[in-house]
């Protein structure tokens, strides 16, 4: 072999290596075969259970035929194992301090009595929902698609509370602290911050969920509700709100819950992108609640495909269904819903072939953003923001 040819050959060889390493981060459908556990946690039905300390519970797919997720089936995600196991509602106080004219210490009774009571129906979704779709495995809980839910939250506008406290002129950041504490004193606690500009009428301190007290595991007695944002911002067991001028450096804000700061928010396992940004707002997504994988239906019978779709509050415009693996798409019927809520869809389907049929759902929002095919979702090391077209495979007999 002449030297030039050898060089050429080795160039081709190295290109091939680069090629495989680039495609090494791949995406498919999230795991959907996990069964609910036999153990019921307080106020919950038995759910898909990943861990007891901290409690990590996932909602099974069947629940997503309805726009409201029942409290006892709503997913649970804590970061630290030490959840306070008793809360005295009489003595519980939410403290407002920092750059305010009057520091406040609000009891639950005062929260329900002294402020305007408001309601917002909103989706709550973990930024790592569907993480098991990413390969190689992205670090964190290997969720299927049930780390999400939608509820009617009742509470008080954060704005009204801050107005009563009187925010000083140079205040820019609001820090939120819950009663979830680390097991080891040097582990950073779970604290969030929000910029003043993000504050609108929809941000509330909620004490009620679907007409009942917040379930203990969903943040009793009060949690922050920030519609459109992923759930890492929805601080549970809210105990302290501090207004500051400067941004405080926080582990969970600065290291966890971040994606590559490029336009595709993607990277490869070998070459992680150097700068990152917070996950913040949710992308457009839909999940099929019925039928589920391996459902058996009779030929020529009358199947109603049902599911839910949502985005970050722009609103869902269309949900399209395919029963031929994504070649042809037809519109599903949509039910009216508030902008931050699950939008229910349903689609009449009469199976006219035999054997396996793959049903897919694709949501499109009012801005025209639509879900990509699962394999076109780009990999990121934290496994965040998966929103591939959902698919279930049934059998027609």
């Amino acid at each position, binding site marked *: 072999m002449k030297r030039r040819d050898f060089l050429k050959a080795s160039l081709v060889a190295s290109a091939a290596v680069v090629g495989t390493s680039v495609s090494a981060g791949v995406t498919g459908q999230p795991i959907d075969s996990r069964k609910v556990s036999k153990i019921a946690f307080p106020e919950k039905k038995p759910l898909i259970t990943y*861990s*007891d300390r901290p409690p990590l519970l996932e909602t099974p797919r069947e629940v997503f035929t309805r726009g409201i997720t029942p409290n006892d089936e709503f997913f649970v995600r804590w970061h630290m*194992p030490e959840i306070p196991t*008793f*809360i005295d509602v009489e003595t519980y106080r939410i403290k407002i301090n920092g750059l305010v004219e009057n520091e406040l210490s609000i009891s639950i*009774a005062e929260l*329900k009595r002294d402020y305007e009571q408001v309601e917002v129906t909103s989706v709550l979704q973990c930024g790592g929902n569907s993480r098991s779709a990413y390969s190689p495995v992205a670090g964190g809980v290997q969720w299927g698609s049930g780390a999400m839910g939608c509820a009617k939250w009742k509470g008080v506008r954060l704005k009204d509370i801050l107005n009563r406290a009187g925010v000083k002129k140079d205040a820019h950041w609001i820090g939120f602290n819950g009663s979830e504490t680390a097991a*080891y004193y040097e*582990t950073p606690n779970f604290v969030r911050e929000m910029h003043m500009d993000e504050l609108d009428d929809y941000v509330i301190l909620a004490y009620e969920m679907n007409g009942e007290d917040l379930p203990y595991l969903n943040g009793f007695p009060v949690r922050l509700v920030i519609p459109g944002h992923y759930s890492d911002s929805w601080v549970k067991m809210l105990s302290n709100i501090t207004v500051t001028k400067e941004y405080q450096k926080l*582990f969970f804000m600065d290291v966890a819950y971040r994606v590559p700061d490029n336009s595709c928010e993607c990277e490869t396992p070998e070459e992680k992108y150097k700068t990152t940004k917070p996950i913040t707002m949710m992308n457009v997504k839909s999940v099929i609640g019925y039928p589920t994988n391996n459902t058996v239906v009779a030929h020529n019978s009358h199947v109603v495909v049902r599911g839910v779709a949502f985005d970050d509050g722009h609103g869902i415009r269309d949900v399209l269904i395919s029963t031929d693996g994504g070649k042809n798409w037809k519109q599903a019927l949509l039910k009216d819903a508030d902008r931050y809520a699950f939008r229910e869809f349903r689609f009449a389907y009469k199976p006219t072939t035999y054997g396996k049929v793959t049903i897919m759902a694709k949501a499109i929002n009012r801005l025209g953003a639509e879900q990509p095919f699962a394999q076109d979702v780009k990999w990121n090391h934290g496994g965040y923001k998966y929103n591939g077209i959902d698919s279930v495979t049934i059998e027609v007999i």
Partner: protein
Amino acid sequence: MKKIILLSILALTTLFAQVDEKVEIPYMPYEIKMGKGFDAIEANCLMCHSFGYIINQGPQSRQFWHEKVVKMIHHFKAPISKEDEITTTNYLFEHYGNGKEK
């Protein structure tokens, strides 16, 4: 008068029985593979979370497990000695590994 009655009704609302006293978070049994180095896992990895939380990552490379252990030390300030950093990594790779170094 009417208002006062209303208020007292509000004050009487009771909490759901599972949460009006100390909440009991159930313990889950996890199947744990016994072997060399398990003592180090028990001593170093179960104070902040359960075993289930560790193994739901699925089978992983040695590098992956090592990076996790280092993350625990670096970010979460886990007090783990250099020796146990290696022992726990070896245990995890041997029992929950995918056979690949990287």
